[in-house]
Every structure is written in C-alpha cells, then in structure tokens.
C-alpha cells in the first residue's frame, strides 16, 4: 500500500484523502494512517509546490556550485554537508562521485546574493578547498515536470470507437 500511495502522489500531492482512497481501492483511514507513518519515518519529507518563478514578478536566481572539500578529522562529508545545507538559501546538497565532492544548489534574489553566499559563507568554511559556481539561465524541467510551454491542448477527437 505504501508503494501504491507514493506512486500516486509522487507527481501530484494534492489528491484528497477520499480521492486517494477511491483510486487505490481502500478507505480513507488506511490512507491517513499510512501517510502519517511515512511522514513520521520521513519517507515523505514534505509537499513543496513547483513554481515557475520566471512567470512571476519575483526574480530568483539559481546557481549550481561544485564544491571540493577536505573532510576533517571527526568531520566526514556528512558533517560538512550539514554545515552547508543548514543555510536557508541552500536548496539541495548532493554528495558526488567524480571530480568534486558536493553539488550545492542555491537560490537567491540576485547574482550578488549568490556571490555573497559563495564568498562569505561557503568558501570560508575551513573544510571547503574550492568552489565553482554556475548560474542557471533557464529551467526546462524540474521534478519530472516540464516548465516551458503552455497548457497542453486535448488533441483527441471527442468520440472515437
């Protein structure tokens, strides 16, 4: 049941409990219990909304930063990552295989904002040895959802055999 619920809400967290229950052929209590359990176990970590800020008045700048770190004694990657991800402006942090160690994605109001974060907060951390910052110019797709283009029109005829 948990897998079924997750599959159903992974692309749309707004189904009501009743709708989910109907879709999965169970009743509302079961859905509520299972969701609660998954929230407690942080299998479900949150329900953010995917917003295309480019279409609003509010400007947002996103940057991807490649970070190299030297893990300190008593302070492995996890600890460094935690010191980074605690900053509010940090959207995502991933530990990477390959040429650098962490990918940090941050959003700010302006390029200056982002630059300030990198120079004042990130690169000043003792364990950070280098950073390379790339600004996002346009978002095409996020969380499996295309961000460009308008609403898709129904192409099918109204009645077919």
């Amino acid at each position, binding site marked *: 049941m948990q897998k079924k619920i997750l599959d159903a809400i992974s692309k749309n967290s707004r*189904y009501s409990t009743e*709708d989910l229950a*109907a879709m*999965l*052929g169970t009743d509302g209590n079961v859905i509520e219990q299972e969701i609660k359990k998954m929230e407690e176990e942080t299998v479900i970590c949150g329900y953010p909304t995917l917003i295309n800020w480019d279409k609003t008045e509010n400007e947002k700048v996103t940057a991807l930063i490649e970070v190299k770190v030297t893990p300190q004694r008593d302070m492995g990657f996890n600890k460094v990552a935690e010191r980074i991800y605690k900053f509010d402006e940090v959207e995502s942090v991933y530990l990477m295989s390959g040429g650098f160690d962490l990918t940090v994605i941050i959003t700010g109001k302006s390029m200056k904002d982002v630059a300030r974060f990198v120079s004042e907060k990130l690169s000043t951390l003792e364990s950070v040895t280098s950073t390379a910052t790339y600004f996002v110019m346009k978002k095409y797709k996020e969380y499996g959802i295309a961000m460009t283009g308008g609403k898709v029109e129904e192409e099918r005829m*109204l009645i*077919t*055999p």
Partner: protein
Amino acid sequence: MRNPLSKKVVEIKPSGIRKFFDIVNEMDDAISLGVGEPDFDTPWHIREEGIYSLERGRTFYTSNAGLKELKTEVAKYQHRRFGLEYDSVSEVMITIGGSEAIDGALRAMIDDGDEVILPQPSYVSYEPCIVLANGVPVIVELEEKDSFKLTKEKLEAAITDKTKILIMPFPNNPTGAIMTKEDLEGIVELVIKHDLYVISDEIYSELTYGGNHVSIASFPGMKERTIVINGFSKSYAMTGWRLGYACGPKNILSQMLKIHQFAIMCAPTTSQYAAVEALKNGDEDVEKMRTAYDQRRNFLMKAFKDMGLQCFEPFGAFYVFPCIKEFGMTSDEFATRLLKEEKLAVVPGTAFGDSGEGFLRISYAYSIDDLKEGLDRINRFITRLREQKD
C-alpha cells in the same frame, strides 16, 4: 448514369459512434468521456526512435510482412508475456493497426456464406468486415449477469454446420470484460470439437487488472487454429502511428500476407522502427500506464457505487459499462440528453451491438480531474432524473 455503388457496401449500417460523433461535434463546449484511445502521449523514447529513423533517412518501404527486427521482437514479446511461441519469419506479420489484421484475417478465411460467431457488445469493425468478406455474422448477445463473458452455453447454441470462425473480443471494448483461463476452457473444448477457427483480438491484452491476460492460443491444440491480433495503439499509447500485427499458423498468415501485399504493401516504416523500441524497452511504460488506469478504474467504480448506479466490475481495457435501465430510456436517449443537458459526451452501448441497450460506455482514458468533472455531470443528471420520477 449507372449506380456507381456496391449494394453490399451501401447496405452496411454506418457506425453508431459516427452518428453520435456528429451530434457531439456541433456542441462547442462539450467535454467527453467518450474516447477509445489512451490519454497518454507515446513515451518519448519511442517517439524519439521514430524521429531518429526519419533523420537516418529510413523513409522507404519495408518488406511486406514488416521489418525483420520488429517481427523478431513481436515473437519474443508474445513469448515473454503470454507464453506463445511463434516463428518470427512465417508466423508474424505487421499490419496497419489491429484494424487491418482483423479485416485481413476475415478475408483470408471466409468463403461466401461461412458463418462467423460474433459476441456483442464488441468493437465496431468486426461485423462490417465479416459482411465485406461475404461472411454471415451470427451475433451472440453477452449479458451483464455473466459479467459480459462468452459462456460455453451461449457459444454452443450459436454453432451450426456452417460455422467456421469465432471472434474472441477480450479484453473487451466496450464492456471491459475479460476471459480468464477457467472461462476459456469450455470455449476451447467447443472450438476443437466443432473444428472452428478463432480470431482473438487481444489489443487490450496489456490492460488487465488483477491478473495477467491469458491468450486462447496458449491452450493445447489452439495455436494452429487461432489468429492472435494485437498492436501498439492501446498498450503503448500509439493510436496515431497505425501499427499492429497478427500472429498465427503459417498456412493462414501466408494468405493474409498476400492480401496485405497487394492492398497495403507494408505498414508505415517510421512506426515500425518506433515499435521495435517499444517492445525492447517499453515494459516499464506499460506498467506505469496500467497502474494509472487501474487507479481511475477504482475511482469510477467507487463513484458509481456512491451514485447508486449499477455497474459490473470490469477487469480489462479502459472502459466501464454502467447500466442505465432504471431510468426507462434507451441508451441513445440517455446519451443524447446527457450531452444536451450536461454537455458530457459518452457512447451509448448500442453503438457496439443491440445487446448494449441499457448501457453506456464510459472511458477512463482521462485524468482523475477530468473524470471528476464528468462524474459530477452524470451525478447531477441522474439525480434530476430520479427526482422527476418520484
């Protein structure tokens, strides 16, 4: 001037769907739960393969029976999914949709006056194709009390010494009925006893809920007397690509191929390349779509229960077939009024045969939000009807 037309063709009734389509088209803001094709786009990796084939300049005919690679994949797929073993060279042919395969199989097998047993309600093309091939359709009316399955008794009653072919339209459009292994056993027995051939339209074979589809060709002694028809339209959401296939014994397939060779030449090349990709790497897409359809099916069944609208539970395809007999109207009247009063298009059950009277075909090839909107309209409509009756 002489009459240019063939009597046989003129006498074929236009499809009931067509008539309804014309009414719907005159309404500008109607919404619909009347569509018989998936709402999903063809998965991108499949479309991409089609595009790539065009870029590579693969814009020529393929061999008549279809690309060798595609036939090989079809044979592998039939084995993987349904345990059927076909020789990809002589027992598989690629057609323009399941549609062409239905027509070709009937034309290759029927002599004037041969009887073809046709269970209804079922897809609209069988009956006219039988007639065009000079066969005689013998309709078996499936009933809700049997969950719209073909029973041994019904089949037996329809068999005469002229019967040659049985059409097996399961999973069924429009009822959503399926035939399980147990359901098929009695049918197989009769088919063999009376030396019949079967055309098994398995176009919805990927869309069954609660158990894998069982092909009648998988029974001992049945492969040599069955043409299995399948295709890409429903399982891979590829209706517009116009691609299907037939699998069957070489002696029949070679004659079908003759018709295909002269009437069609070959199925669309771009679609064939895309279909290779679908069969090689599309299992996961099918699974995803099946899960989505199943959610919608549950959703509709629950909604009908809440409305108190009688509906047997369908286990296949993407249709539900609720009963509207309580309202004392024909399916046609009901559907027409629903369209005029609530601007919702559904298909009257009678479009699929007289035994569809008293039922509606409602498709769930729609998003949950669309289904909700449609269900609201149905609910409003029947609530009004019930109030008027009291």
